[in-house]
């Protein structure tokens, strides 16, 4: 726990440093309108990062979130075009998201396939379904109320409406992960699934539930994205899984499961959004932003590993653990 606490302190310092760089390099950085921009463009990824954090702590991964969001966006557009009432379009999109998550979860828990492979497959599958629905067309005649939810601000405050969606969700997930028995079982599962199962944890059900929740929230993120860009397209939210996973890992969540906090993920979401904003303000192109986020992702995994390896390389330590293992394997 102390290691994570230190990691979060490091993230907070990174965030402060980024702010300093932002202020130094751009006049508009500190303006309210810029913060609205940072916030609203991050909300979809932030929403997807919540269940992603839980899934990775539980020892799995969901690469299909952005494709699920894209499919949900296509469902909203297509059903709206067909004349359905808006609320029904949104509910349908959420149900489709749940179905996407259920398929992932069933393949992982019932057939025992690795989630990395399963969701890599459904990443392509769900995006493909979105393309089947919309082909190259875009649907954009949404009602004003819907699009205002996407990019509008609350009164004159500059706080985007979508932040009001994210914040309660963040609180719910933080409580779920850090205060409930389900959260504890999740850490146990990610730490040692066999020992968790032998401690009466319903590992498969837990994971299945998480994948369904991930699908639903990915669909919600797809709806938010559709509203923000006022357009339903098959390639909506494409590539978002990279940012989402990067934020979760940079937030101190171990890719091997069992470790991490949602607070760390919140800090890293803010840090990544700020970094992207600074690059954009300094008229860097999207490719450069991608390079920066990708590098950050690798650093976030490399950093703690390097520290551990340096500590683990103390003389005699390896030999000691080896002979202990041998002793256990003995008669």
């Amino acid at each position, binding site marked *: 726990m102390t290691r994570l606490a230190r990691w979060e302190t490091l993230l907070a310092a990174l965030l402060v440093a980024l702010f300093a760089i932002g202020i130094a390099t751009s006049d508009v950085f500190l303006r309210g309108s810029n913060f609205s921009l940072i916030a609203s463009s991050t909300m979809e990824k932030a929403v997807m990062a919540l269940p992603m954090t839980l899934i990775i702590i539980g020892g799995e991964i969901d690469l299909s979130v952005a494709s699920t969001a894209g499919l949900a966006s296509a469902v909203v557009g297509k059903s709206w075009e067909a004349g359905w009432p808006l609320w029904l379009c949104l509910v349908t999109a959420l149900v489709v998201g749940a179905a996407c998550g259920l398929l992932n979860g069933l393949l992982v828990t019932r057939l025992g396939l690795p989630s990395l492979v399963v969701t890599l497959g459904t990443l392509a599958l769900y995006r493909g379904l979105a393309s089947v629905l919309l082909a190259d067309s875009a649907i954009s005649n949404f009602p004003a109320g819907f699009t205002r939810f996407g990019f509008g601000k609350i009164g004159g405050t500059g706080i985007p409406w979508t932040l009001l969606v994210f914040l309660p969700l963040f609180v719910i997930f933080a409580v779920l992960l850090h*205060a409930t028995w389900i959260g504890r*079982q999740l850490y146990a599962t990610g*730490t040692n699934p066999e020992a968790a199962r*032998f401690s009466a*944890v319903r590992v498969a059900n837990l994971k299945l539930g998480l994948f369904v929740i991930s699908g639903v929230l990915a669909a919600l993120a797809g709806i938010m994205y559709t509203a923000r860009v006022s357009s339903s397209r098959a390639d909506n939210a494409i590539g978002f899984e990279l940012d989402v996973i990067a934020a979760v890992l940079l937030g101190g969540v171990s890719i091997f499961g069992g470790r991490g906090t949602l607070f760390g993920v919140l800090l890293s979401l803010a840090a990544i959004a700020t970094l992207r904003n600074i690059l954009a303000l300094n008229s860097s192109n999207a490719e450069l932003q991608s390079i920066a986020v990708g590098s950050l992702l690798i650093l976030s995994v490399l950093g703690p590993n390097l520290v551990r390896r340096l500590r683990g390389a103390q003389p005699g330590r390896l030999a000691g653990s080896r002979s202990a293992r041998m002793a256990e394997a003995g008669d």
Partner: protein
Amino acid sequence: MRVAFVFGWQMSRKIEGTMSSPVISGATAHPSPASSPAPAAEVIGVAKSFGAVQALRAVDLTLYPGETHALLGENGAGKSTLVKILAGIHLPDEGEIRISGQAVTLRSPLEARAHGIAVIHQHPTLFPDLDVAENIFMGRQPRGRFGQIDWSAMRAEVDRLLAPLGVGFDSSTPVQGLAIADQQLVEIAKALSLDARILIMDEPTASLSAREVERLFAIVRRLRDHGVAILFVSHRLEEVFALADRITIFRDGARVITAPASDLTLEATIQHMVGRQLQTLFPKEPAEIGDVVLRVEQLTRAGVFHDVSFELRRGEILGLFGLIGAGRTEVARVLFGVDRADSGTIHLDGKQVSLTSPAVALQLGIGYVPEDRHRQGLLLPFPIASNVTLPILPRLSRLGIVNRPKERDLAAEFARRLQVKAAGVEQAVAALSGGNQQKVVLAKWLAANPRVLILDEPTRGIDIGTKAEVHHLISRLAVQGLAILLISSELPEILGMADRVLVMHEGRITGIFDRDEADQERIMYAATGQARIPA
């Protein structure tokens, strides 16, 4: 003296370096140990300890060329440790290994191999995706002119090696599809190709059928007659007497006796294996035995165990004894909902139950302290408190929120009751000693308040003091009315603690003894599959 063990065939000269021994055709006379002045291998005063556990205490063993030497002992007697020392896996703490009279240090399996020692393990360690020839010549394939692998030379050599073994496969058969018995023969062929003079077999027959055993023994006898020194470890006493020229028996890490097989009877052998005094380590208190809690009928898991039936009563400690591979843990896994039975029924308090997961088993009041503490029993990075409360966390929660003070108090209460030595319940379990870790596992299941508690090797690898504490606790729990299934490989533990003893051998129950009729010999007979009960 360098002894080759070819069966009269001509060795290929193409394979340089690996096949350098001179060809000796015709059988060497089978030397009797007494008349053979030059031992193939000598173990002199070898001791080895792992942490606080003394696995071997100054043992001696002499292997002569052309003898089959059986190494016997209970689980934990130190047989495997000696095998691993000879295989170059462990270095002895004290003592000396001599090969053909020369003192050697075997730092790795490679060095052991260079000294002519080949080890055949119970589970062959071959590459399943490669064929027989590739496995036999792994890492030392014969080369052609341009450094490429000379496949035809390799295959021809392997087929020559295999011919006298009378096997039903050839050099190009993939190892994947071979039975365990055939894989062992591949290992033996590999040992032949390496010119091994000392062949060590660790429970080679554990997973073989009777006919496969016969074929293996025929081959082993031929090797012996060609001067190879053979050391084999087995739990099957009738096989030992069928094959061994001499027998060495270990007990508690020390050598009890080495004698010609013809000088030992089955009875004497078993007595040497188990013959120790029961200590006051087992404070079994008389408990009131009540109604049947758990009834198991004809429980079968295909290929693992068959027709297992027994009853377990309130207040009773039912010992379940068997040698490695007897199927005890496998039965426990089914009773805890980890695995499913193929047929048979389980009744709890007279009602048939379906145990589909450990979570269901817990709800029905079954607890299981698993054999493998680190992999199944504990979350090592977690604090003591979280480990103790994990199964019952929903009960300690309101609206899903864990009541932390209540959790800490409960964990502290059980940690105190079991005398877990730790700085506090927030301390990580990984930092505790083995005995204290085991107490945490026990605390976890006691906190769950089960009616049936399955203990799988509850005192394995823990120090003697903690062992006595754990035994005392088990006894107290029975007095309080818990029904306990105690799985153990330690006969004294079973005899000291159990009200009744169930004995398994190769997946079947081969004996049930009441406390007053259970003795070491009877149990050992049943555990080794001997039909005869001594008078």
